[in-house]
């Protein structure tokens, strides 16, 4: 590359020729502000993720962090707390030199999120970092708070002029849930986007930071074998399962207001559906990918109230057994109201009405206290048109099924039909399996590590855009409304079961849920 070539191909900004071949691309020096720095998410996920990035040398050349929370604490006390959290929750043992150097750049600002004076103090600390270093740090605000504070903080940042900074980028990360229904999501978008440009807003869905989910994009668009089959001509139906074997634990405060549909289906599972069914994007730039994803959601008709009983099922777990022990029902869980009608299980049948998928049902189910913890996508192909192998004593010909397992054993499995050894032409299904763990003997980074780095780089590919969030609520809102307005009794399913029997009614003839 000559110096003339480096000056770029018509853009104002010349390229940096030194980055070619480097795995870790440079990131602009950044100050990250965590609102809710004393909370569980910050302690268990964010601070350990930041430490692990520092350990690997992946953080920007210069990095500062400001914790904001209402608890009174000095900088030193905050550093001590951060040190403890990192030591307890980091995925690797800590290196004292790295940890010491990292937390030396931590500061703390006390205040409630609606306290106007707190933002003035925060601005001062941000400016101090810039002045000390003689550079303008990028600023990243991470809203790790209760959802009701998201608009409050975004507005206060705007009103105090912290939503922009000359000479550097300012970005804001908003945790899920992004709204509790369509109206609240729209309202939140409106209030956030009054002060921030959409390009500054990163709505985090940590599912998208998982290697497994990103692998789905690679599986689909880097392997020629699947794409010719990936349409209504060959696919009979698709089912997406996100099952948990555990109950809600001590999360009743959150979960009872949320329920299974809001907790997982509206965000994580629709993300999986979008990635599975989207058209190939022109490039893997953020907007190209998100344009294709949102088209999928626009292709799913919002259910009418009268359709909901036929396309959505909810249930709540009752007492049963799990892992050989008795398991209490949802209503007996700690802090759950006796009359709670929150669903702990949700299943839906959605149709993606576009050229590729017309007529192919997408079944999705999720729930707590089910028989097994598993997240998987099963793509069932249409059966062969003529059954030549009908001998007695044969398990018979089952349609091919491509299974993408997200957890626990990430991999891809294709069911085939094979001849049973012997004189007779008896056949049975067998599996051709690929397990990621056998081919990449390495530890995947935590989803938050990937997503925090992407935000620092300004890459929004793995984040939800405002129209995507609203489109997802457009699908889920009528279901929630119908359930809230309906007077039928909430079905129960035994703890440790595969879900309520009513879920079977969602399946069209010839379709069936995979056993859990």
């Amino acid at each position: 590359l000559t110096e003339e070539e480096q000056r770029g191909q018509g853009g104002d900004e010349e390229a940096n020729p030194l980055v070619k071949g480097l795995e870790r691309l440079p990131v602009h020096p950044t100050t990250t502000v965590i609102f809710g720095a004393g909370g569980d998410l910050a302690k268990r996920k964010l601070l350990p993720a930041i430490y692990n990035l520092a350990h690997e040398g992946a953080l920007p050349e210069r990095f500062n962090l400001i914790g904001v929370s209402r608890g009174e604490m000095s900088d030193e006390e905050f550093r001590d707390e951060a040190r403890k959290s990192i030591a307890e929750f980091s995925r690797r043992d800590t290196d004292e030199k790295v940890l010491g150097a990292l937390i030396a750049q931590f500061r703390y600002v006390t205040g409630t999120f609606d306290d106007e004076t707190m933002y003035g103090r925060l601005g001062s600390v941000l400016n101090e970092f810039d002045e000390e270093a003689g550079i303008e740090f990028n600023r990243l605000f991470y809203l790790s708070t209760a959802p009701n504070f998201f608009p409050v903080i975004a507005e206060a940042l705007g009103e105090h002029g912290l939503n922009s900074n000359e000479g550097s980028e300012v970005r804001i990360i908003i945790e899920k849930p992004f709204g509790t229904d369509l109206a609240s999501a729209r309202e939140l978008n409106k209030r956030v986007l009054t002060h921030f440009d959409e390009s500054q807003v990163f709505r985090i869905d940590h599912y998208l930071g998982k290697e497994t989910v990103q692998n789905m994009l690679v599986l689909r668009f880097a392997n020629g074998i699947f794409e010719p089959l990936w349409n209504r001509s060959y696919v009979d139906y698709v089912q997406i399962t996100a099952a948990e074997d555990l109950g809600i634990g001590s999360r009743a405060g959150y979960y009872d207001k949320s329920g299974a549909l809001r907790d997982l289906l509206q965000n994580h599972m629709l993300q999986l559906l979008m990635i599975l069914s989207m058209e190939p994007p022109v490039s893997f730039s953020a907007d190209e990918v998100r344009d294709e994803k949102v088209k999928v959601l626009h292709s799913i008709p919002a259910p009418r109230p009268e359709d909901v009983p036929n396309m959505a099922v909810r249930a709540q777990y009752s007492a049963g057994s799990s892992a050989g022990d008795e398991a209490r029902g949802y209503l007996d869980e700690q802090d759950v109201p006796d009359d709670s009608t929150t669903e702990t299980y949700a299943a839906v049948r959605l149709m993606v009405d576009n050229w590729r998928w017309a007529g192919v049902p997408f079944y999705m189910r999720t729930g707590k206290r089910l028989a097994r913890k598993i997240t998987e996508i099963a793509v069932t192909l249409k059966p062969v048109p003529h059954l030549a192998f009908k001998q007695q004593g044969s398990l018979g010909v089952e349609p091919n099924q491509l299974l993408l397992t997200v957890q626990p054993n990430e991999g891809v499995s294709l069911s085939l039909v094979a001849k049973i050894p012997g004189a007779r032409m008896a056949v049975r299904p067998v599996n051709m399996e690929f397990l990621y763990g056998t081919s990449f003997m390495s530890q995947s980074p935590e989803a938050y590590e990937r997503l925090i780095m992407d935000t620092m780089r300004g890459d929004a590919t793995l984040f939800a855009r405002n129209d995507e969030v609203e489109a997802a609520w457009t699908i889920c809102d009528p279901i929630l409304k119908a359930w809230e307005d309906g007077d039928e009794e909430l079905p129960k399913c035994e703890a440790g079961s595969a879900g309520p029997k009513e879920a079977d009614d969602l399946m069209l003839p010839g379709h069936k849920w995979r056993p859990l």
Partner: protein
Amino acid sequence: VTVSARSEAVWGEQDTTPSAVDAALRRLLAQRHAEDDAFVPARVCNLVAIVDRDWRGEIENRLEKVGRFHPSRTIVCAVEKRRETIDAVVSLALPGDHKQGEIAVGAERVELTIGEDHLERLETIVDPLIVSDLVTLVWSPHGHDNAVDALIRLAGVVLIDSVMAPDPVAAVDRAHWLTERAYVVDLAWLRSVPWRERIASTFDPPQWRSSLREITAVTVRHHPESVVSATLFVSWMATRLGWQPAPMQEEDGGLVARARASGRKVKLRVEPDETMPVAGLAGVAVETASGMKLSLFRGSGGLTATRKTPDGRESSWVVLGASRGEAGILGEGIRQALLRDPTYGPALTAACEMLAS
């Protein structure tokens, strides 16, 4: 995956043949799978290590400590003088932290004891033992170039450490010869990754990028035996920035080359640092015509950066990142076998030309 073995299945035979070893591998796999259906063999890459028998233990220790990135099938060929027969030990190791309900990924190891006469025909011994379709990485830390040459058709990747060769000129020439026949992963190159990342990072903000066109001097200090690492670093900068370096000359205890850049000269200097305890770089300094100076140096607390701006302001900071250690470098070398770095080849060619005199 943790490689601390929970259990090992072992087979061994003296005066054996490759086909007997291959059969033993298959048998052990079937036996292990029958004992535990959660067992699956890893399929990442093959590593063929050719070592002197007397130093085999040291190399095995290094391989044990590579951490997360280790080969799925390791074939250690321990060379013993005057030996005419082949002895073999095959083992399958399971991870120690295998959880109920999850797969247990096992790694395979074949230890062959062979004679020097086997090296010329090593391909015929190793070929039946590698897993086909996986990347095969050859590493010969004790010399035995003839063994690497014998395996080069079979191996897609050769792992070298060009700082270990006594003669730097011969080391880069050999590396260059290998790059024309296989993909080369050079540990000397990998040791400079954090340095290259930091220099790239420093000049990345748009307001600093134009300074790349003003660089007038690059000085690299190195472990006395790591002149190749230092030369590769300056040749990397030269090739990435379009400079034309002349051959290096000895000057004040170091090596100096002048490079032609657009309308200016750049002084490239590499100099030994006797205080540097381990292989690799000890410090890098980059100066520009406008008076900016960026220094990176390796101290006891890690990498420290200092930037002096044209107006005389100076700031220092610690570069975050844990030391990988020599074992980590080897692990990184194994991982790099599955990747491709397009910048090593041009940097190596430039290094050959710079060291040619």
